[in-house]
């Protein structure tokens, strides 16, 4: 059997691609109606993402946070939980890393790892809170997570204002150089793009996601709970513990996203009126990637590319960035309504299949 062809014939694989094409098409039509040249705009988009080393590096900077939150949401999905709280876990991870980066003074080999681990753990605990509430108090995870998102935002702002930001300013001083997770030589190589360890740890997390879920006993149990909690319970799996573990792991992924935004990219944190929404982009990324780690990686790449590339569309082709959000929105719409896509493309497949069958009939069994 032709394995590669099989993969591309699986609906879950080709539907996102068709969705992307349809999304781009929709965006193109919107631009055309608005009096912009879609070809020039998409050309500019492409150029912005792949044009220079600096731009490509900055695209990666845009990809990294949504890769982490995408993994967070996807992982929880696989284990039967809708983690809408990745946003809060991201903020908590970020704030904890900032705190360690500013208030603790240690040599580099220990300072940066400590800040990373503390940030990750705080994200994990913030997630675990949602899991605990679901397991032992029967609170729907969507409700508690949304509330915890706001609590995280204001808790973070409180921490910043009262402990980390100088009076009268809106942003913290830069973290200690020893806590930085930037990669200097790579930054120079990419002509100054803010390169850090984030994308590499992100790729490692893609692998961890896969191995944990499909190669370990723990993952087997989490997936069992995700697919059928009743059967898992009857088989002696502790589903309450499972909810908490799932949310811890998910929260750790999201928290890492926040960690790298401080330690790797900005080196400071800002008092925010509203969250940057990476957690919500993560939901879209997970959906686009079919909750599979590799799919999430591709989804994050697409989203990050579109987000960063939108600035180019703005500069070069004069297209407002809102149009790019329309393209992204269209893509999500088409992925979510895969039933629609199936209906649209079914006739083509049917025709091909019947032709194949006829062909096979005439030529004998060729396949």
């Amino acid at each position, binding site marked *: 059997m032709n394995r590669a062809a099989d993969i591309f014939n699986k609906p879950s694989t080709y539907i996102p691609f068709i969705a992307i094409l349809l999304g781009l098409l929709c965006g193109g039509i919107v631009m055309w109606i608005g009096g912009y040249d879609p070809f020039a705009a998409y050309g500019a988009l492409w150029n912005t993402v792949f044009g220079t080393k600096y731009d490509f590096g900055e695209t990666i900077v845009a990809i990294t946070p949504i890769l982490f939150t995408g993994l967070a949401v996807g992982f929880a999905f696989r284990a039967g939980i809708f983690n809408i709280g990745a946003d809060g876990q991201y903020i908590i991870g970020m704030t904890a890393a900032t705190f360690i980066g500013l208030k603790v003074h240690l040599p580099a080999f220990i300072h940066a790892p400590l800040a990373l681990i503390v940030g990750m753990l705080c994200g994990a605990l913030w997630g675990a809170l949602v899991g605990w509430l679901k397991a032992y108090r029967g609170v729907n995870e969507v409700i508690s997570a949304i509330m915890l998102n706001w609590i995280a935002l204001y808790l973070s702002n409180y921490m910043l204002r009262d402990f980390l930001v100088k009076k009268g300013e809106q942003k913290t001083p830069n973290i200690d150089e020893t806590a930085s997770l930037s990669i200097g030589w790579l930054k120079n190589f990419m002509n100054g793009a803010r390169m850090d360890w984030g994308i590499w740890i992100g790729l490692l997390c893609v692998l961890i996601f896969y191995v944990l879920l*499909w*190669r*370990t*006993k*723990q993952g*087997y149990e989490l*997936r*069992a709970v995700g*697919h*059928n909690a*009743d*059967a*898992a*319970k*009857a*088989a*002696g*799996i*502790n589903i309450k513990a499972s909810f908490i573990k799932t949310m811890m792991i998910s929260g750790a992924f999201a928290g890492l996203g926040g960690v790298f935004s401080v330690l790797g990219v900005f080196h400071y944190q800002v008092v925010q009126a509203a969250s940057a929404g990476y957690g919500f982009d993560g939901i879209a990324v997970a959906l686009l990637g079919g909750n599979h780690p590799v799919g999430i990686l591709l989804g994050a790449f697409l989203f990050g590319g579109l987000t960063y590339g939108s600035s180019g569309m703005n500069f070069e082709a004069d297209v407002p960035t809102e149009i790019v959000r329309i393209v992204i929105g269209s893509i999500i719409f088409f992925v979510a309504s895969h039933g629609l896509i199936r209906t649209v493309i079914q006739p083509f497949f049917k025709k091909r299949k019947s032709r194949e069958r006829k062909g096979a009939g005439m030529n004998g069994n060729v396949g």
Partner: protein
Amino acid sequence: MEQAVPVVELRGITKRFPGIVANDAISLELRKGEIHALLGENGAGKSTLMSILFGLYQPDEGEIRVNGQPQAIDGPGKAIELGIGMVHQHFKLVQPFTVAENIVLGIEPSKGLSINYRQANAKVKELSERYGLMVDPTVKVENITVGMQQRVEILKTLYRGAEILIFDEPTAVLTVQEIHELMQILKRLAAEGKSIILITHKLKEIMEVSDRVTIIRRGKVVGTVNTAETSESELAEKMVGRRVSLDKPKPPANPGEVVLELSGVTVAGADKGKPVVEDVSFSIRAGEIVGIAGVDGNGQHELVEALTGLRSLQSGSIRLDGKDIGHAPVKTRIKAGMSSIPEDRQKHGLVLDFSVGENLILGSPEEDRFFKGGFLNKSEIDRHATRLIEAYDVRTPDIHNKTRSLSGGNQQKAIIAREMERDPRLLIAVQPTRGLDIGAISFVHDRLLQARSEGKAVLLISYELDELHRLSDRIQVIFDGRIMGEVDPEKAGDDEIGLMMAGKKQAGKGASS
């Protein structure tokens, strides 16, 4: 005999699904006023064929004639127009609506903008009386029994002018009494000139009620016979394709030491109300099957959940091999030697989106064997799966296939394989043959008897008295959460057990306890 034109004639119907020919050149004739049984195992193609007749599928080849005219039935609407009605296995009723509202749904008689309920009620009442259905059109569906709901479904088809009625496994959800009544209704309908197709795999019902039988095996017609000229065993053989013995006498029991002992088991109801299981005490010894008879909903679910650890005890104790496990978690019970075949295999027994191999290790007490250092031991899992699907005849193209793609019978076999393979001390089987065909039923029964002869203690909970009679060494009758008494299946008749199931205490000299 009759030379009249058949009301329905299926000619060479073929329907293919990816990878399978569900119907292979099937031809069938339905005469006016007859009850024609369609017999076949699960997956033989009965339901597909009837879905084609009802317009839910389009045949790839073949022709359908209704009253001699070739017809293209492109949807249920067309089928209804042609006078074909279907009584589905799973009722399609709106619970908070009244009987009449359900029946007229979609074709409501109107009076201006509102529904003319008086006319609807009157029409339903008239139909109900004509066919002896005795349904009150004004009560809400949620307040009537399953048997009555089925009659509402029958009325729905009659109201739409059906002359041809298709019944899809109509007795699967009914009690003994209700089945008996349904048979009378079918006869009455046929006597009034309706033509009936009865899809079933229950031979007893076919022998009781049908005029002719068409047997389907693996998508092909094996033959059509007059019911009067055949026998249950002949039909069974035709359906399965080999000789099956329906009433093998079981070997004598050889009970050993007590394995399971329940004393005073009480399970609280919802909101700490009246207990749903009250003061249940009995024991099962090694090498015997103890059956629990009772009408569905008399505490069986809760009793089983208390046994398997899914529900907590209010009071009383459960001992397995002398060890009190009444409050132990599920895993501990499994490790102590408890296996169970759950009633709802898709909900409690399997993770349908897991591969067959993954399901075969679900809840396995042998953690070290399948998980090495916390990682899945894929080769051992595959080896285990390959051996089990062979030994238990689980039909799947591949052990990596999703369990969802297996037929119900094969899903059940997979559960049995998994649970039996653990070599348990106690096997709890709840409705182990629900929804299975004869071939699979006899397989399950053989396995339960095998467990018994291997010296395992078996607890069998079933709503089918035949099954309990055939397998059990002792029967406990449960009513309203309490054990009404114990009977010897060799001596007690259905009537006696039936009375106890309805709440009458055991007759005669002091209940054995």
